[in-house]
């Protein structure tokens, strides 16, 4: 069978590079070997040698190869793009950032001539664990990759040569393997967060299990209300996976490294033979733990979807929460325009009996500057891209994200103004904030809290002086935090202006030789003493001099960062606004209709939180980007 998404094997390594869990799928492995056999028979003269090992590498081999790669690639993920340290035959030689996520391992000793390439290994780092998943591909793909990382030329031209792009397009199994790795990451960390749906009535708001257990709750299976976080941001490690705990006999201690039973159960439910069927862990765990009783009757006329193994029973209602995260880069400059963007989503929880369809018209999309929307797989969207969209969906059980969208701000920025920091000497800076908060915002928009933090990660704050016009200030070693609106004292329907002049003194600058294993770190020692000496005198102002000095030993950031945060002075604003969305996205409760018709109240809520809401130091350098 062509294509498909199968996984040959899975490994989980801890931060000591030891394999703590591994799982091989012999059925998939058999397919791989059969494919290799066919491939070998069909092409005799192939420059790229690949041998089919009798077994998948065992755990110790994987661990060794992983350490080896880490060594040659500088870090767990590797350089990603071709740098001077990149070796031919390594991933970074391919010169693509995706090689930080899709890695290859070379198994076996090179000199013995028995080494072979293992690719593609999907790498997902979660907490202290590295998850490696090896999807099934065809041998020819492996050959192509092998050629790519051996090529002797200067690198790929955009869209012309044999490229990793076409491999990735050809291989849905890689995409699938990522989804598997992500799901497993959530399980081993025990951080399975349902999208948050704000409910005004019931204190216990969770996902599927709440739907099943009502408000009674089963001991040990309580759901958590957590702020919605973008999946990228790794949340703090929470308690162990509560759901899988029942099947395990081993004593459950918080420090236990890995809940292998939960993992095994998840795998045998989600991908019994290595081919994933469903990765919805709440469904899988509920089925494993609860099973089905004779009272769980199948629907009489419809087929029950595989993604909805249980049907809701009880009081019916439907809840929607519009959640928006605001990212902004505020420059207050003539040459760079401020940018503000909103990533929004509509979370839903439909407590409806049977298998009803819900229709939800979304209006005012143009006014809301919504760029494009994307939907939960259960949703049917007859038409796209007009101002009004009618959407029909058959809701799954529990909380789920119904729609995601990108939008612009319909109002002015919630926090406007500037931040100026000027170094009066090498160790002393004078700063000034002048902020306009919630200007033009009317009720019911409410700002629940608003903080401004000035991080100085590379300097130690010795003293601080200054009083803001509003709010309180506290400092820690590296941060000045200004609480403009403390939580509990919300601001509704009016705007305030806040100013904050002050000075901050730092401990004398010390050269930080970060023990970085990243690229280029050795370049530093190579620096020519002839050159360095003079630059100091030529600098015109302190600021530039300091900048120069500090950026000298800045370690390179990971490719996953947008830029080198530490190179800039900025203030980060965090806030939460409720009452309405900033994009203008709204749901009209009256227009929500359910088929077959039932009487179910529609509850709506909205919350806006800040993401990267950054005020750049107006007097310093700042990162920016052109807009089309």
């Amino acid at each position, binding site marked *: 069978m062509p294509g498909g998404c199968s996984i040959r094997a899975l490994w989980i390594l801890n931060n000591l590079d030891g394999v703590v869990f591994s799982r091989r799928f012999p059925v998939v492995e058999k397919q791989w070997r059969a494919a290799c056999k066919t491939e070998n028979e069909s092409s005799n003269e192939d420059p790229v040698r690949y041998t089919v090992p009798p077994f998948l590498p065992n755990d110790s081999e994987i661990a060794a190869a992983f350490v080896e790669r880490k060594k040659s690639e500088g870090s767990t993920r590797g350089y990603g793009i071709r740098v001077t340290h990149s070796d031919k035959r390594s991933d970074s030689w391919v010169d693509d*950032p995706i090689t930080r996520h899709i890695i290859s391992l070379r198994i076996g000793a090179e000199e013995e001539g028995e080494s072979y390439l293992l690719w593609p290994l999907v790498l997902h780092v979660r907490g202290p664990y590295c998850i490696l998943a090896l999807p099934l591909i065809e041998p020819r793909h492996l050959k192509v990759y092998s050629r790519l990382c051996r090529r002797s030329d200067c690198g790929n031209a955009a869209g012309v040569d044999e490229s990793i792009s076409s491999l990735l397009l050809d291989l849905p199994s890689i995409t*699938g393997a990522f989804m598997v790795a992500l799901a497993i990451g959530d399980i081993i960390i025990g951080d399975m967060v349902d999208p948050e749906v704000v409910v005004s009535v019931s204190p216990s708001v969770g996902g599927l299990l709440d739907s099943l257990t009502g408000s009674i709750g089963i001991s040990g299976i309580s759901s958590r209300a957590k702020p919605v976080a973008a999946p990228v941001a790794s949340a703090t490690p929470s308690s162990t996976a509560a759901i899988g705990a029942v099947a395990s006999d081993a004593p459950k201690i918080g420090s236990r490294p890995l809940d292998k039973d939960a993992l095994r159960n998840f795998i045998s439910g989600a991908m019994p033979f290595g081919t994933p069927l469903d990765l919805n862990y709440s469904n899988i765990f509920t089925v494993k733990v609860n099973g089905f009783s004779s009272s769980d009757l199948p629907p009489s006329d419809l087929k029950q979807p595989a993604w909805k193994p249980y049907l809701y029973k009880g009081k019916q209602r439907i809840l929607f929460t519009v959640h928006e995260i605001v990212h902004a880069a505020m420059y207050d400059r003539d040459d760079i325009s401020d940018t503000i963007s909103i990533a929004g989503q509509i979370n839903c929880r439909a407590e409806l009996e049977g298998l009803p369809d819900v229709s939800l018209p979304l209006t005012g999309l143009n006014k809301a500057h919504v760029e494009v929307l994307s939907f939960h797989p259960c949703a049917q969207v007859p038409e796209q891209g007009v101002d009004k969209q009618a959407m029909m969906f058959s809701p799954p059980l529990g909380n789920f994200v119904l729609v995601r969208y990108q939008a612009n701000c319909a109002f002015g920025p919630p926090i406007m103004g500037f931040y100026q920091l000027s170094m009066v000497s090498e160790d002393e800076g004078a700063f000034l904030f002048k902020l306009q908060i919630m200007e033009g915002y009317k009720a019911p928009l409410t700002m629940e809290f608003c903080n401004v933090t000035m991080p100085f990660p590379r300097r130690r704050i010795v003293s601080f002086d200054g009083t803001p016009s509003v709010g309180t200030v506290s400092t820690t070693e590296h941060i000045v935090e200004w609480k403009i609106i403390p939580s509990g004292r919300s601001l509704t329907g009016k705007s305030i202006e806040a100013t904050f002049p002050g000075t901050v003194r730092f401990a004398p600058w010390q050269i930080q030789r970060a023990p970085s294993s990243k690229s280029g770190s050795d370049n530093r020692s190579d620096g020519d003493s002839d050159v360095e000496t003079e630059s100091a005198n030529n600098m015109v102002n302190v600021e530039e001099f300091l900048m120069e000095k500090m950026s000298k030993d800045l370690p390179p950031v990971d490719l996953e960062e947008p830029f080198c945060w530490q190179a800039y002075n900025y203030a980060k604003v965090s806030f939460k606004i409720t009452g309405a969305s900033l994009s203008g996205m709204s749901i009209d409760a009256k227009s929500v209709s359910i088929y077959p018709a039932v009487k179910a109240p529609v509850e709506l809520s909205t919350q806006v939180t800040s993401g990267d809401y950054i005020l750049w130091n107006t007097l310093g350098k700042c990162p920016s980007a052109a807009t089309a």
Partner: protein
Amino acid sequence: MTDKPPVLKPPLSSQDWDSLIDDFQHGGARRQKWTAAPQFLSSFLDHALSFLLKKDFPLKIPLLIFMEEFSETFFTDESHLLRLLDALRSVVQAPLDGISVTFLLKEQFMISTTSIFISIDALNKFQARCTEGLAELLLTVIHRPNHGVDRQTRAIACECLRELEKSYACLLSGIAGHLWSLCQSERTHACQSYLLLFTMVVYNIVNRKLNVSVLNTSVPLVPFNVPQLISNGKEFVGLNYKELRRALAFLLETPQVLTPFGMMEFLQMIMPVAVALELQGSMLKVQFFGLIYSFDPLLCHLVLVMYSHFPDAFDGQEVEIVKRLMLISKETQHYLVFRLLSLHWLLDLLSKLMLSREGKKYKSVVDMGLRFYPAVFDPLALKALKLDLLAFYSIYLEGLKLEGGSGEDCDASKSVVKLIEDGLISVSAFKWLSPWSTETAVAFRAFHKFLIGASSHSDTDPSPTRTLMNSVIFHTLQGMLVGLTLDILRLVPVVVSFIDRLLSCQKHCWLGERLLQSVDKYLLPKVKIDYQLVSYFPVFDRIAENNSIPPSTLLDLLTKFMVFLVEKHGPNTGLKSWSQGSKVLGICRTMLMHHHSSRLFLGLSRLLAFTCLYFPDLEVRDNARVYMRMLICIPGMKLKGILNFGEQLLGISPSTHSSSFFNVPSPRHYQNFKKSRGISYCIHLERMIPLLVKQCWSLSLPPSDIGSSKPSHLESIMDSEPQVDLRELDVSTSFLATSEIERTNQLQEPLRVMDSKISQILGVLRSHFSCIPDFRHMPGIKVNISCILRFESEPFNHLFGASFLTSPADGVDALPSLYAIVLKFSSSAPYGSIPSYHIPFLLGEPSRNNHISCPSVSPDIVSVENDFEEEENYRAPVTIDLEPREPTPGLVDAFIEANVENGQIIHGQLQGITLGIEDMFLKAIVPSDISEHAVAAYYSGLFDALWEACGPSANIGRETFPLKGGKGVAAINGTRSVKLLEVPADSLIRAIEQHLASFVVRVIGEHLVNMVKDRGIIKDIIWKDAASDSFLVSTASSLTGLDQGPLHLTYFNDGEERETQVNGYKRRMGCILLLIFLPPRFHLLFQMEVSDISTLVRIRTDHWPCLAYVDDYLEALFLT
């Protein structure tokens, strides 16, 4: 392993099992210790199965998975399988008790058993009844649709059956009808598994083109039999289209029940089926295109897969697809990798569109406004990929420019420039961050992408290259990079590695060269010359390496820089001067390695010369001198060879370590004896001017006093205290005296009669001797023998390995060469210590038959000019400096020591050099107070004085003359001799002109003077008529004196000779006088009385042994 095999102790506790499983997973020795013991394997299965059926064993599921993963180790026999199957049956049929028998266990048992059956290939390796048994068991499980409690178990059983069907295609084809009906009736969430199972069966039927009914339920579900076609391999070709289309229609109605992964599986099977059943692709599109609006990346990918399967059906949807992919990349809610993936998909889609040359479609997609500007908060990885897309877009714009008319031209190019500039803003931090920052890496990656644009590496067509060279992109980037290099010193190494990257690429090295050229052109004139300049050295080094760039500009700059360094040098800059000066030399070295010496010569020699002379640092000066020397002496290719060789030995990059050259490799080993003997066959040291006399003997005068270190006999110089000169005549020497030798009385009484004439003579002699250095106390007078060293390539190669043997077509480079040649000399003759001679480099002679060295034959300059020039390469002039203690011929032994190209040292003896008496002929030293135009007169006077002093009636007797240095004195003991040469005057004069011209001091006789003077070769001497010459008187008298001598000439022509003199005075044309100085302090005087047909040579000397050789010499000179 020293451990006792733990076989005897099969695992009992959970911990034992845990460690057993761990050991297997870990592999290597830990697994080995278990598998090595055969008893373990045989007993394992019983053991494991019994544990699986135990009531309170907690590790049942891990044990099952373990058996599954290592099934090939444990299941090697059919009985194993049967036992496993029995165990499975008992578990599946056991009632649930919630503790030892759970659904979980049942499900895992089914999964593991199925997996084991498949992975050990049970159906093909063992009897079919095993697999039949398993399938039957599974079928009984699934055969209860809608049963509420075990729905998950039924779903798993369906999955097991699907895996069996996948591995053994058409295994279940016979019961397809049953499966379909089960599929239709199942309404719980397990229906996905039923659906997929049935789809799998349909897929295999279609794929194998089986003529099987999918409606027919006449075959009972159980007992299950493996269909004939699998067991006997026969296939019934021909599809039942009608039924299958119905099945497909059924399947296509149900996809909304599938999970995304279920959908994936489903569509992967449905697509080929749809193709085989000739279903319209647009049907699928209608049904499934909506998936693209999902935020599930897998579903979006699925649409892309469909698009690539049915490009026609999805025609016109490209814009929509591209839009969606753009959205995914922008969705911050996504995990980063999916945003990256979406850009990759997009890139590939676009490039496929571009390749498809469906211009219109492509244009519409790109025109959509492919504005992939990175956003501020995009992770750098995303920025990098978006820049890739921009690079891609820039290619498109370039294409537009080329296709479009002039109107669009400037628009497109403007927008390309804008595109690049705008795109790079997002990583502009590379301008102020450290060069190792990730921003820098991303920015330069983008430079690379933009630069190479659409020029593929696989492409052999050169046209894109040409396009590229003229492209706006190229010009823009070139300017940007040069600007960056000039403005931001920090970035120089980055720019250099960027250029390196291009240079190392076969296809794009010209781009790197171009960049270097533009650096050379635009940057070099602009750089400021100060201490910061050294930051640019890495890029200078690349320029120096590059042959395509004339080095003059760089050399100029470096010279200026050297001047700067010299000027700025002070007490505080010592180290800096040294370091920077060395770096400059490093670049010079690079140039030497990569350019033709001729191209460099002028500039580099100026730079090096300046450095040699003025640079404050000694080491730098020294190094410069060495480079200078190498530049001058060693031809290009060989020089490169040397420099490269040094590099290989040290493994250090050339540029930064200029001193590396001086770490001379230690000699590897000496050549063996045979080889060293052979050296003289191929390496030749030859005299530049061959000897006239093939001297095969030499007069050896053994010391009288053996005990004394220096021969007292013929002590040429005495210490100044008066000493009785006891000369002993060794009789043994007299046998050599074959010509007329007349010796003055050895024991003359000191005559102290001083008349004015004598005192004048003495005065002349004193001043003469005072110019002669006393070799015992100071460097004596030297005799230089010019030789050439050459060696023949072919025998040389033969002798020293075939590694140099290359085809003659390779020219000079193919020839072997010798380096650092040291010639050492020794001689038994009293020549003092002979300094060794050093030749830095010598190229082997090409083997040419006609290549014969004959320097005595004056070469025809015009025709052989090239030849001659070429020859110079193969011949090294060698000068042997002798400091003779005695003017005597002799043999000089020569030894060679040299390096061969591969670092070997060869050494050995060469053919010796024979020295003749004529080698000792020197001009007398002229005192420094004699002005130039008085030299001739001085020589003439000196001749007279010496002639007199060596004459028979020498009145100067025992007069001694102090030598230069004041410590030694010399006395003159004259000897006379004559020699008649029967040669015509013409040839005599010619011979004199050729060999003795410089020693002629006076020509007497009008006729002779006219004759000689007209020829113009002998000049700056005294010309005299016969009449005015008083010398004739003395010659006449000496002639008579000779007649009176004890040795009478008895030659038959003696009379005639005298007659000539006496009677035929007219025939006598005149006299030629020659004064020859013989080092260390002797003289040889010839008076040649020239007549038409013969010449009488009167010889006087103060060193009688030389007469023996002079005779031979004269004969060889005039008579042969």
